[in-house]
């Protein structure tokens, strides 16, 4: 943003363009801070649940390795519903009218497509079988992280960093920690998402 004390024509021109970009982006980020925190809690609960199932019902997991796909489908569905409610309420408190509503619908459509891709692409890649089902969470997390990164590049760099952090929170424990990877991912995911929400709060995103 340009200095607010400089009223040269060049600065005024830049101010107009910067403000337009900023206010448009802000419409797409309604409630993002709260939504991020909610997803952090939900993902952490999801991974702790996955860790508990793997520890307490390991025989069942060995027989049905794809069981975590429907488990995560339920978790993500809850998150999507909660996100749309939070986003709608935040958007109504910022602006009333077509601009906010259209921005909210576009954001919702963007995330529906990302989540659908996270479930459908592993299917298209032939991973939905007993031998390769254990790779599905990795592919799905990669796609979700890509969604955050793309959304962040378009609207706020902090979200792009959150996307990279989500990928790291999954892949590093998965590669290094074996049986306790899911629990470690839960904690790291919480840390990444809370740090991202703090960063966004320090900027103009409420």
């Amino acid at each position: 943003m340009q200095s607010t004390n400089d009223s040269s024509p060049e600065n005024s021109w830049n101010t107009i363009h910067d403000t337009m970009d900023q206010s448009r982006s802000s419409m797409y980020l309604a409630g993002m801070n709260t939504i991020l925190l909610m997803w952090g809690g939900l993902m952490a609960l999801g991974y702790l649940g996955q860790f508990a199932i793997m520890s307490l019902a390991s025989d069942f997991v060995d027989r049905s390795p794809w069981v975590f796909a429907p488990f995560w489908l339920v978790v993500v569905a809850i998150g999507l519903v909660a996100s749309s409610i939070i986003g709608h309420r935040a958007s109504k408190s910022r602006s009333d009218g077509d601009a906010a509503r259209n921005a909210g619908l576009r954001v919702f459509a963007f995330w529906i497509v990302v989540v659908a891709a996270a479930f459908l692409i592993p299917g298209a890649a032939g991973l939905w079988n007993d031998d390769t089902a254990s790779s599905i969470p990795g592919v799905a997390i990669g796609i979700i992280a890509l969604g955050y990164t793309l959304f962040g590049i378009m609207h706020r760099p902090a979200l792009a960093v959150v996307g990279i952090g989500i990928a790291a929170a999954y892949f590093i424990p998965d590669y290094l920690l074996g049986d306790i990877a899911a629990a470690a991912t839960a904690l790291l995911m919480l840390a990444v998402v809370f740090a991202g929400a703090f960063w966004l709060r320090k900027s103009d995103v409420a």
Partner: protein
Amino acid sequence: MTQEPLVLDEIIHQPVRLRIMTMLVSIPESDRVSYGFVQKSLDLTGGNLTTHLRKLENADYLNVTKEFHNQKPRTWIQATVAGRQAFAEYFTNLQKVLSWRPES
């Protein structure tokens, strides 16, 4: 033939008011934004924002309305038709100023 000198609207040209007006005209005419959203987006203090809003409201460039939603007060800000026209004129004049070159 001598041309009329270009004059930029002083009410809009002030940097904070320019940001407020830009924000308001970048959404559809029927839309309003909340006071809190403008304050947070533009990183202004309440007193500063109120002072500039009053100047813009006195010039009939925007409307400020207070409503109660779920028993909580909420202040909405909306650009008027006159405000949008003034901004469009300011923008056109600014383009002319920026493209102006002295005759050699």
